[in-house]
């Protein structure tokens, strides 16, 4: 857990526009800090105490820079100091990205006694997390029978499961019949999404515009495509979005797929980035198909030549060829 936390916080540490940050308790005591000016702590603490449990993401303009602070969960508050010239929207977006990462980590509550901003605090948190995990593991072992009935509940025949869908990096999710319902605060679907995916689900759905593909959505959120794909599969099973069904794709390509892989097959696709004018007619038969979206084997099949012919042509123009690795 502490390496996940370190990784999440490192997004801030290695951002040139971040001057410092602090992970604080809900009372405003700094637990883990990095280059956060000491004289700003009282002001942050005042704001936290002003709002108490009603604290939401807020910004404070200071002479040292723009402070963005937000509760992470019931125990923790993240405070980040950005350079003064950073646009407000960007500062908020950057903070939200880190908050999303932190949401995925089960942070234990802070200890009652700790030294503020001490280096060893991350390890302290790890110890608490391990103790908590071993206690809950004992409790879980004592009640295994509770699990069985839940698993045997039959799934409704009309509702599909997330695994029935096939989503790849270039899949374009479309808004489904339940799309607007899922975005209405306090609707059943919204609450379900919030409990399973927290705010991440809402953020992804807001970006679904029937035009952007999964890779573009993930890039704009600075999130892994896997995480976005997992959310979209869940959303598809609830008819919030529409994506290809695994069986449909299988029948189109004529290949039976027993299971849906979590990531597609990793392949390398040649992309010609040179001057078409310098390519001879015969060579263009090959290079014209090098668009970064299909493998050299596929290209060979399409034009009906041996794979070695394609490789020889690519080698001839190797200075103008870029190999793009992607999952298909």
């Amino acid at each position, binding site marked *: 857990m502490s390496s996940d936390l370190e990784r999440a916080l490192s997004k801030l540490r*290695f951002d040139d526009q971040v001057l410092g940050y602090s992970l604080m308790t809900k009372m405003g005591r700094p637990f883990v800090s990095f280059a956060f000016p000491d004289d700003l702590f009282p002001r942050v603490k005042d704001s936290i105490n002003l709002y108490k449990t009603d604290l939401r993401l807020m910004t404070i303009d200071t002479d040292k820079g723009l402070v963005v602070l937000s509760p992470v969960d019931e125990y923790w508050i993240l405070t980040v100091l950005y350079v003064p010239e950073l646009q407000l929207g960007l500062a908020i977006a950057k903070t939200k990205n880190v908050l999303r990462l932190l949401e995925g980590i089960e942070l234990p509550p802070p200890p009652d006694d700790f030294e503020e901003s001490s280096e060893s605090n991350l390890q302290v948190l790890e110890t608490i997390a391990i103790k908590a995990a071993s206690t809950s593991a004992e409790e879980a072992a004592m009640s295994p029978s509770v699990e069985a009935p839940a698993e045997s509940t039959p799934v409704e025949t009309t509702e599909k499961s997330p695994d029935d869908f096939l989503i790849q990096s270039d899949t374009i999710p479309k808004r489904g019949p339940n799309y607007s319902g899922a975005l209405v605060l306090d609707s059943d679907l919204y609450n379900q999404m919030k409990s399973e995916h927290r705010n991440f689900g809402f953020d992804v759905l807001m970006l679904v515009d029937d035009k952007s593909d999964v890779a573009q959505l993930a890039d704009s959120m600075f999130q892994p495509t*896997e995480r976005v794909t997992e959310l979209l599969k869940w959303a598809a099973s609830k008819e919030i979005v529409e994506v290809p069904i695994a069986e449909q794709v299988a029948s189109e390509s004529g290949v039976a797929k027993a299971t849906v892989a979590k990531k597609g097959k*990793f392949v390398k696709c040649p992309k010609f980035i040179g001057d078409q004018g310098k390519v001879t007619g015969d060579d263009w038969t090959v290079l014209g198909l090098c668009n970064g979206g299909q493998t050299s084997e596929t290209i060979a099949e399409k034009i009906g030549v041996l794979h070695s012919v394609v490789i020889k042509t690519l080698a001839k123009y190797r200075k103008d060829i870029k*190999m793009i690795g*992607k999952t298909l």
Partner: protein
Amino acid sequence: MVKTENPLLLTIYGNIVDKMLESTSNIEEANDQLRALGQELGSNLYLNTEIADKTKDTISTREDVAKLVEVIFKVLLDKKPSDIDMDSARGSIRVSDRDCVWCQEINIEGMRGFGYCEIFSGILQSILEFKGVEAKVFQELSKATGADACVWTIRLD
């Protein structure tokens, strides 16, 4: 594709990565397995190269770790890392390479979070272990997936 350093290493490693990606079901698993492979290589590298001779038997300071990393780069890759940062993160050392050998001319799309050069994380971690340093090493950024430099974090406990 332009002239590359160590084309044989590139081709062999590229083949390993391709096979790893085929046999794993998600990116985290691929990262883990590449690191594990690097760790397996660690003992042979330690036995068959001058790394042991050119470095202190026991490593006690962060500066020692940084020197060890420089020796590893020199002996294995005949180069220097672009930067070794010991200041930004207390408890960690970040090693950067703007001309990473492992992922030259590799362009990967849509696989955010994939550490193409994680094999090197495993190698570093393994050699650090031989020197008595318990550390976790992972690739923070990779040129293969669009970063300006490959960056490895050595998290010292």
